[in-house]
C-alpha cells in the first residue's frame, strides 16, 4: 500500500522544488559554451603551427589557461547532463540504466579533472 495521497501521485514525483535544476544547468552550460567553444576552435585554428612548443606557450598565457579551464568545466558538465538524458531515454532495464548512469558520472568527473590537471600542470610548469 502506498502512503502517498492521490494528489501527490497525480503530480508525479512529489515535491518539485529541484526538478528544474537539470534543465537550467543544461541551458546555462549551453550558453557558456557558445563563446567558449568558438574561442577554443579559433585559438587552435590561429596557432602558427601544431608543435609542442607552440601549444605549451599558448597555455602559459593566463587568459588561455582560464578560458581553457572554463571550457573544460562547462563542456564536461554539459556533456554529462546531455548523455544522462540519452541513457535515461534509450537504455532499458533498471540495473543497466543505473549502472550506465553511475559509469557516466564517474568517467565524466575523471576525464574532466584529468584535463583540468593537465592544463594546470602546463600553466604552472616553466
Amino acid at each position, binding site marked *: 500500500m502506498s502512503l502517498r495521497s492521490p494528489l501527490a501521485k497525480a503530480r508525479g514525483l512529489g515535491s518539485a522544488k529541484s526538478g528544474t535544476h537539470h534543465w537550467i544547468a543544461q*541551458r546555462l552550460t*549551453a*550558453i557558456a*559554451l*557558445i563563446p567558449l*567553444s*568558438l574561442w577554443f*576552435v579559433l585559438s*587552435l*585554428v*590561429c*596557432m*602558427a*603551427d*601544431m608543435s*609542442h*612548443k607552440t*601549444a*605549451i606557450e599558448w*597555455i602559459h598565457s593566463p587568459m588561455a589557461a582560464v578560458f581553457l579551464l572554463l571550457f*573544460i568545466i562547462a*563542456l*564536461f558538465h554539459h*556533456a554529462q547532463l*546531455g*548523455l544522462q538524458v*540519452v541513457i535515461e531515454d534509450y537504455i532499458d532495464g533498471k540495473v543497466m540504466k543505473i549502472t550506465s548512469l553511475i559509469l557516466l558520472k564517474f*568517467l565524466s568527473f575523471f*576525464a*574532466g579533472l*584529468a*584535463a583540468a*590537471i*593537465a*592544463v594546470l*600542470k*602546463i600553466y604552472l610548469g616553466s
Partner: protein
Amino acid sequence: MATDNRPLSPHLQIYKPQLTSVLSITHRGTGVFLTAGAFFLTCWLLALASGPEQFETLQAHISNWYGQCFLYAFVFSLYFHLCNGIRHLFWDVGLGLEIDTAYKTGYAVVAGSIILTLLTLCLATGGVA
C-alpha cells in the same frame, strides 16, 4: 496497476523523415559524438602535459587522413550542435515555434554549420596541420 502491457507508440520506421525530426535526432547524435571528442580533448591535453614525444606521436595520428576525418567530423558536429543549440534556446523562451519558422531556422542551421566548417577548413589550411 499493470504498466507493462500498455499500447506502444507507433514505431519510428513508419514515419516519413522530416527536416525537423532529422535535425532533432542529429542534435542528439552530434551531442554523443562530441562527448567522445571531449574525452579525446583530455587525451590531447594529457599528451601535451606529458612531453614533446607523446604529443608529437598523437599529433602525427591527427595529421594523418583518418585523424583529419575525425577532426573535421568533430568540427562539423560542434558547429551543428552550436547552431541548433541556439535554435533550441530560442524555442525555450517561446520564439520560433511556428512550423514554417521551425523549417526556416532548420535550413539556416544546416547551411550555417556547413559554411562555418568550410570557413574553419580554409583558415586551418593556412598553417595548422
